């Protein structure tokens, strides 16, 4: 039997194994001239080089920003380096939600040269077309070091797609990402992240989100392909009355993939609401699905749902946690881990589906979390990815 703490335990990851990125990549003047290999890898994680129906595009390859273009009023998107030169106030947002001392990864991120994106919506700007950003690793055995800042000013609205991938599946490397998101009064941020790293990649994003009164963060995380080891546990602070956080994750762990993924929400004000929904399938890999809600005031409300399917022997470890400090918090959780119910398979077979068709229909349904506010094209993309993945697993 597998032990979740034995393999890829984050604290044990040896940073010396990786070298800093050696060179840099040229800026891409014309996205349509990117090779089909690369553009296909990007498309797999939701990044469309035709920039059809996109409000802005940012692409970072290793530590070089190779493309950055915002063509929408009320929206700024650029490299964090350029942004720090442009706005002297931006320094005040760096390392505010996360501390460099948090762990060896944040401390390394702080010491090493970095890049990353800066996304900023003007007050009241409703940016309906998705903003896309791609973080791409191409140099074997290197560390990609990133610091991202998103600031949604009051009453603005943004839909962001972040696709993260490596140049090919056999590549090893370490992705370090520090992300700090600021959702101000009444602002709405939809953030969808799709990962496709590969069997040897180690991934350690560190994310924190601050939401003010009436603000909304909806975060969708999708990882359907093999990854060496991945650990992320973003923290969201609901710091104003009526602030809302919704986190969905869809995880598939094949072979020796190791995923430790969760969401943590602090409900600090009355009327704050949180929902964490996680769907995981292990087909030979490890999934640790965490969720934590901390209710500190009366009148906050949260629900945590964590469901896991075991198709092949692996590990599905659900850890839902609720912490209530005062009377009047209303939090609940629901966790279930198991195999596909034989009754469901036979029900579909009684309608004429053979056993394989029945199982894949159930798996597809299981993974199709209804992700609110997703652009239809991306929803179709995810649906396609899910279908392909479940075909691979069978």
């Amino acid at each position: 039997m597998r032990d979740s703490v034995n393999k890829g335990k984050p604290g044990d990851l040896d940073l010396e194994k990786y070298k800093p990125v050696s060179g840099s990549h040229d800026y891409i003047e014309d996205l349509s001239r990117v090779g089909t290999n690369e553009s296909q890898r990007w498309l797999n994680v939701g990044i469309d080089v035709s920039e059809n129906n996109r409000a802005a595009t940012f692409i970072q390859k290793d530590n070089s920003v190779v493309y950055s273009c915002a063509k929408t009023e009320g929206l700024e998107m650029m490299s964090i380096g350029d942004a720090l030169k442009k706005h002297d106030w931006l320094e005040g947002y760096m390392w505010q939600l996360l501390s460099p001392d948090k762990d060896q990864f944040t401390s390394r991120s702080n010491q090493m040269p970095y890049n990353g994106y800066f996304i900023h919506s003007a007050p009241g700007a409703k940016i309906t077309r998705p903003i896309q950003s791609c973080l791409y690793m191409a140099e074997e055995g290197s560390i990609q070091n990133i610091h991202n800042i998103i600031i949604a000013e009051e009453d603005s609205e943004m839909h962001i797609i972040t696709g993260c991938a490596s140049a090919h599946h056999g590549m090893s490397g370490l992705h370090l990402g520090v992300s700090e998101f600021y959702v101000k009064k009444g602002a709405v941020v939809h953030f969808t992240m799709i990962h496709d790293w590969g069997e040897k990649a180690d991934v350690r994003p560190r994310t924190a989100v601050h939401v003010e009164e009436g603000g909304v963060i909806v975060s969708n995380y999708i990882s359907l392909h093999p990854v060496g080891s991945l650990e992320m546990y973003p923290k969201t602070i609901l710091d104003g009355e009526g602030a809302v956080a919704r986190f969905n994750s869809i995880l598939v762990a094949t072979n020796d993939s190791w995923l430790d993924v969760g969401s943590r929400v602090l409900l600090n004000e009355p009327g704050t609401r949180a929902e964490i929904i996680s769907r995981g399938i292990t087909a030979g890999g490890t999934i640790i699905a965490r969720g934590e809600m901390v209710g500190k005031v009366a009148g906050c409300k949260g629900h945590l749902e964590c469901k896991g399917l075991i198709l092949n022997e692996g590990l599905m470890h659900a850890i839902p946690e609720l912490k209530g400090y005062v009377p009047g918090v209303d939090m609940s959780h629901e966790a279930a881990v198991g195999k596909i119910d034989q009754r469901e398979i036979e029900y579909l077979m009684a309608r004429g589906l053979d056993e394989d068709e029945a199982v894949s229909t159930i798996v597809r349904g299981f993974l199709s979390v209804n992700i609110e506010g997703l652009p239809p094209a991306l929803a179709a993309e995810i649906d396609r990815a899910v279908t392909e993945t479940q075909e691979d697993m069978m």
Partner: protein
Amino acid sequence: MLQIEDLVVKIGDKTILDRINMEIPEGETHILFGPNGSGKTSLMMTIMGFSGYTVAGGRILFKGEDITHMPVHERARMGIGVSFQRPPTIAGLKTKDMVTLCSRGRELDIEELADRVNFTQFLDRDVNHNFSGGEIKRSELLQLMAQQPELVLLDEPESGVDLENIVLLGDIVNMLLERGVKCPRSLTPNPHRKRRTKSALVITHTGHILDYITADRGQVLHNGHLCCVKNAREILKWIREYGYEECVRCEIV
């Protein structure tokens, strides 16, 4: 159409159906009466081939072919369809997609079919998720309309259905079995239409469904034994008058 010969079925070590013989000729609808726990649903599950029901003796023939050990989906594809009493919820599978799956590539106007069973507002809901008893029935019949089986097995079609909907439900069953007086709109009723080929076995505990559908024959199942074959309405009168115990005694004596 369906022929059951000396069928013995066990769940674990326990015999739940003992030497059942039954024949449903093409075009006929038979009613299977029986008190709770008599083995009615088990018989239906065995005909469909569900796991957990072990055939310890006898055989089941469908259209002349021995299907006793055939996988569930092959029986379905041969033309057997079931309306379940308590089907499982399949999370993330929308009812309309389920109906499409049932049609197995046949062309289908799902909206129109759903409209006939007054179910259009449920098409985008996960199949059976938080459906009431009556909603489950309509969902099951909608799926059967798409599947178009030749032999329909209905498990307690009237249970949990309110009076208003039971008429509608009876109409749908009759339509499914080519027994309806009402025809799909745009078609005029034709009493001289082609010979009926659809057969059915309808399981009922109360018999109320007989007020809404017509049947050729009735049988009573009691403690795993099939003990009476008669006109369905006649049986129902006996059961209503004297109860199941008395009805069974008549057969034994």
